[in-house]
């Protein structure tokens, strides 16, 4: 019989029911309550007719409720679909139908994004849902019958008993949405067995223990941030997230709870290191710092390893593969943290356009095998066939789109992206998606989006715009126009007006564009 996540949760709930599995600010969830509350919400979903393989949309920020809804869906064999709570109505209008979600769980707001409004612009007028369950006061719940507050959902539909679904290894555990949503959104089918085994292997590699506390800078609704936390949970430890990143409370929390593992991105680390009195915080409990999402500059890695005495483990990865390859200061200190090696439970190839291995010293696309490589892109067989290769042993390999240099000794060095993806402070932004939204603006005739290096956030989004006639378009105007349509992090940081945009967009044209600014 295959093991599943609930085997671990149930075991820890029996052994240490009062132990905290998840803490977000002052809110806590114990292993014991985890089992009880997922039974409550799972039973409610079942009563509404949700069952195995049905999709359960979740548009909520980091919260205990997010975690309960996610695992309640898994408990009944349904597939939770976390959506970025920054999503506006344009993104949701694509995501909800593409994921075939039957029911949605939403928060009232996230930062300035009014989530209930964004959903109610679509449901039920344009998109049907069984119910939209709102974690919000009754007064904020839309009057339509589709909408119900979480309190009423619990009192009207939920019980206390709910069987645990036993998934096969290749059953889809959840659907993960990546930030790109140009036309057809990229929706990842996460395998139950493979996701579990790779997270367990990585937790072993990092020597996580049940007494450990891990603080994450990435979010629950990001597949990477969620998965890294599960590596600790599978050991029976405690994970902590923030409702939104705050550097001072991050450091205070590390000190207060004697955190042993911190998970960061390079941008978050730059912010942390700039905190006045950074040196005065007691970080001596921290054993491992775990990095993902961005290129890690050597200077930052050096500060953590040499000054703070903290092991640095940098992973190059994507939501499609779970764990991939690492740079680990315990083994690789003295080398560049952009040089990666495979782990004992992963494998890498560097391939050319025809999928043949390139020679040492050459650049090619990084292709990775892990047990956790996604089953497919949900609803997109063409993209699945292009990106996921199956070898003669039936192992799934993922073509990452990362360009790497194949070096001696099994080392791969990150060399760039093969696609037009902008890495803005750990968020991936697809240039095409921003262009598509710009082109709907009434004053814009043509647009091209590219990236520019930025000292803090890595890359910023630059939009070159050819206005219609003599119109003038400012970033402020575009930001207002994007508001509610696309997430705030996709708004161009810089807008440059140009007389004409070459139709054949590529790297050469972008260089050309930078010289030809509008007078």
């Amino acid at each position: 019989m295959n093991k599943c996540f609930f085997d671990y949760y149930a075991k820890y709930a029996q052994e240490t029911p009062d132990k905290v599995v998840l803490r977000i600010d002052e809110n806590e969830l114990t292993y014991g309550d985890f089992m009880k509350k997922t039974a409550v919400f799972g039973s409610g979903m079942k009563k509404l007719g949700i069952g195995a393989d049905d999709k359960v949309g979740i548009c909520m920020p980091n919260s205990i409720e997010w975690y309960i809804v996610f695992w309640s869906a898994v408990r009944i064999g349904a597939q939770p679909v976390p959506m970025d709570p920054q999503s506006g109505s344009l993104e949701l209008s694509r995501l909800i139908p593409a994921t075939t979600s039957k029911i949605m769980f939403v928060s009232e707001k996230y930062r300035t994004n009014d989530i209930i409004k964004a959903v109610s612009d679509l449901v039920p007028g344009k998109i049907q849902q069984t119910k939209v369950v709102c974690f919000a006061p009754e007064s904020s719940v839309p009057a339509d019958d589709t909408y119900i507050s979480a309190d009423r959902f619990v009192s009207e539909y939920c019980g206390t008993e709910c069987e645990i679904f036993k998934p096969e290894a290749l059953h889809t555990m959840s659907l993960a949405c990546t930030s790109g949503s140009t036309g057809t959104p990229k929706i990842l089918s996460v395998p139950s067995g493979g996701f579990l085994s790779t997270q367990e292997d990585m937790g072993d590699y990092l020597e996580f223990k049940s007494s450990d506390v891990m603080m994450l800078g990435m979010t629950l609704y990001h597949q990477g941030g969620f998965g890294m936390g599960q590596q600790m949970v599978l050991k029976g430890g405690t994970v902590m997230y923030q409702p939104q990143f705050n550097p001072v409370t991050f450091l205070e929390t590390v000190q207060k709870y004697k955190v042993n593992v911190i998970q960061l991105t390079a941008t978050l680390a730059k912010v942390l290191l700039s905190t006045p009195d950074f040196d005065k915080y007691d970080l001596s409990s921290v054993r491992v710092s775990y990095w993902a999402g961005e290129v890690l500059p050597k200077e930052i890695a050096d500060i953590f390893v040499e000054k703070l005495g903290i092991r640095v483990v940098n992973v190059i990865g994507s939501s499609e593969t779970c764990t991939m390859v690492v740079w680990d200061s315990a083994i690789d200190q003295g080398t560049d943290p952009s040089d990666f090696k495979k782990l004992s439970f992963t494998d890498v190839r560097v391939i050319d356009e025809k999928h043949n291995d390139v020679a040492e010293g050459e650049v090619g696309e990084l292709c990775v095998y892990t047990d956790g490589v996604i089953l497919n892109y949900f609803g997109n067989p063409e993209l699945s066939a292009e990106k996921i290769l199956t070898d003669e042993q039936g192992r799934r390999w993922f073509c990452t789109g990362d360009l790497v240099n194949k070096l001696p000794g099994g080392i791969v060095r990150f060399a760039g992206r093969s696609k037009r993806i902008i890495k803005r402070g750990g968020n991936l932004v697809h240039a095409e998606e921003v262009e598509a939204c710009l082109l709907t603006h009434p004053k814009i005739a043509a647009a091209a989006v590219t990236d520019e290096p930025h000292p803090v956030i890595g890359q910023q989004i630059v939009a070159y715009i050819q206005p219609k006639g003599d119109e003038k378009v400012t970033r402020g105007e575009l930001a207002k126009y994007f508001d509610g349509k696309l997430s705030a992090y996709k708004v161009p940081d810089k807008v440059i007006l140009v007389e004409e945009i070459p139709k054949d967009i590529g790297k050469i044209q972008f260089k050309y564009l930078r010289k030809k600014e509008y007078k």
Partner: protein
Amino acid sequence: MNNLNFDDFKQIISDYTGVDTSEITADTDVYDDLYLDSLGLFGLGSQITENTKLNIPLSLVASISKVGEMFDLLNEKGTPVEE
């Protein structure tokens, strides 16, 4: 204490965000009114440093939400950029 002029400060913000100076006051919310996200705020912080040659700690930038607070922060805690 740095003696920055608020009108000059507004102009830097306007140039960066594309929001007209007439719409920017000390009470303007950087998230709601300037349509920045937290990373965009760091971008604005870098631009301000470039124009004024004054550094402000990023972690303090992360905790503000009004233009006036940012101006006060720069005037009170801004340190000259080392050339």
